[in-house]
């Protein structure tokens, strides 16, 4: 399949005539596309449709409006031409298509810490569109492995729309650097704190490292993450007061808070235990994940089950229950830990407490089974 995709990409590349490409200067320019650009636009429209039909878009009007509002502040002359939407995927990625569609994964939104950091990402992606990086890209063939990953990540068959794919898997080093530099200028011009651009990279670096798997993640694609951090540091060093400007941490937390629990659950469901642990083992955990942070951390440790994880999970969950005793899930996970550690009475108490708090949940039937098993074991003893 990968061979086929590469081959089709190569054919598309060979079929493309080399013509001069001018950047968009305003929204009005989108009416004047060349034949090749028109084809890219069509391919991007097809991808938009496929994502919508495959139910991959996060239907939260308030969040989408917030993303759009930030983007319009960054690109006022393209208002109505660049459309930003939240993509359900828990991975760290964002991508811009040739038709002005920008998708930001929920995984990335939930990892960022404030509006200024999100603005840094959106400015970067918007530049890919404005500078027509899709059309300029000359390295389709080199990108064949990335294309295959992109197809997998989006979960939609995209062989017919390959022309849009480099947007998702990462552009060339040159285009990524250009997007970083011009995006940075946009961000500063819109009044955001320049220092947050590099903090965004650093915040994401923690999780990208934990992810360990190769992938077209926004912050691990070309150029290498560390080089991009250094590039941003160089840009910031030219500012008199890089901390000055809009940061909007509280507002961002308020708007993104429901997404964070959703993303953590999706990451656990997807087996991304190390990433969840990397997200949650932080000093300011309670500021970002006020109630449930410890619960997810405990569950991720329990499921990862490396040496020492069970004991650490028990500590985290016990401490969480001291703060929020009415939360049900920590009791369930604690019960399972005690059961595995042979502490049968403690396991029993935890399970009973769980059922008392949450007897209608899908896990309740399993907990009842575990209780029956415990009764048998306790009777034997």
């Amino acid at each position, binding site marked *: 399949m990968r061979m086929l995709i590469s081959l089709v990409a190569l054919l598309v590349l060979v079929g493309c005539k080399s013509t001069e490409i001018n950047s968009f200067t305003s929204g009005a320019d989108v009416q004047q596309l060349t034949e090749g650009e028109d084809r890219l636009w069509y391919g991007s429209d097809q991808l938009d449709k*496929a994502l919508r*039909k495959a139910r991959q878009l996060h239907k939260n009007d308030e969040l989408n409006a917030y993303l759009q509002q930030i983007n319009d502040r960054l690109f006022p002359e393209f208002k109505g031409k660049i459309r930003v939407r939240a993509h359900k*995927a828990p991975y760290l990625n964002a991508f811009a298509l040739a038709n002005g569609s920008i998708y930001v994964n929920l995984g990335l939104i939930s990892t960022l810490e404030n509006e200024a950091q999100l603005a840094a990402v959106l400015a970067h992606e918007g530049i890919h569109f404005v500078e027509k990086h899709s059309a300029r890209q000359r390295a389709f063939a080199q990108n064949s492995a990335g294309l295959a990953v992109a197809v997998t990540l989006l*979960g939609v*068959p995209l062989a017919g729309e390959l022309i849009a794919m480099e947007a998702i898997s990462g552009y060339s080093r040159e285009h990524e650097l250009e997007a970083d530099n011009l995006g940075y200028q946009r961000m500063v011009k819109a009044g955001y704190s320049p220092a947050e651009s590099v903090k965004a990279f650093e915040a994401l670096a923690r999780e990208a490292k934990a992810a360990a798997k190769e992938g077209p993640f926004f912050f691990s694609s070309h150029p290498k993450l560390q080089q991009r951090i250094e590039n941003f540091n160089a840009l910031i060093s030219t500012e008199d007061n890089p901390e000055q400007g809009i940061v909007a941490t509280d507002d961002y937390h308020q708007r993104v808070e429901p997404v964070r629990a959703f993303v953590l659950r999706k990451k656990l*469901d997807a*087996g991304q235990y190390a990433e969840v642990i990397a997200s949650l083992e932080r000093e300011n955990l309670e500021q970002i994940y006020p109630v449930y942070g410890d619960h997810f951390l405990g569950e991720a440790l329990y*499921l990862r089950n490396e040496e020492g994880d069970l004991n650490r999970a028990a500590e985290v969950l016990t401490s969480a229950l001291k703060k929020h005793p009415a939360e049900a899930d920590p009791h369930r996970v604690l019960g399972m830990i005690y059961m595995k550690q042979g502490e049968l009475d403690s396991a029993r108490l935890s399970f009973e407490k769980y059922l008392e708090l949450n007897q209608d949940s899908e*896990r309740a039937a399993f907990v009842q*089974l575990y209780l029956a098993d415990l009764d048998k074991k306790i009777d034997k003893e």
Partner: protein
Amino acid sequence: MLRKDNLFRALLVMMLAVVMAGCQQWTRIDEGKNIQSDNEGTFEVEVPTYWVRHNFDREALAVTKDSPELQMARFMRRNTDKPFNSLEGKLPESPLVTDLADYYLADLKERMGGIEVEKLALTPATLAGETGFRMELRFFTERGLEMKQVAYGVLIDGAFYELFYQAPNLIYFERDLPTFEQMVESFKPKSA
């Protein structure tokens, strides 16, 4: 009398027929041959007459009635050393049923790439006398077609068995689900 090129063609067709017969992709389940097992013979399942078996799926017993796109039942015994790709190493000692369900879901999501698979329900289930789980899931294709899945999982003598069914929600899922459930009831690991 056959001309030389006609003879060559006839030979070619005969050779192709021999080759095709040797690697038949599908086998119809005829009456009296309903008890089927995987290639290693680790379990048995009673497959309805006139369903067809997909022979190229070497890892599992995969059967369908109309075509794999319309309904597919797949039964397999997972690699005992590393049953779930989502886990770094071996399965933890004495995993609980919900652990198996969680690892299975993560593994399924990985196998399905970035497709947005949604878990609809998770309940305990008994398979060959052992406690396992039953999970219902769904996803949408890029054309908006809703696909539904049912997955059973159970650990028997240290081996994880997966019993899986997938069909479009439109007509096929409900229609052939009872048949799949009957196949699940007939599931018998050889060690049991």
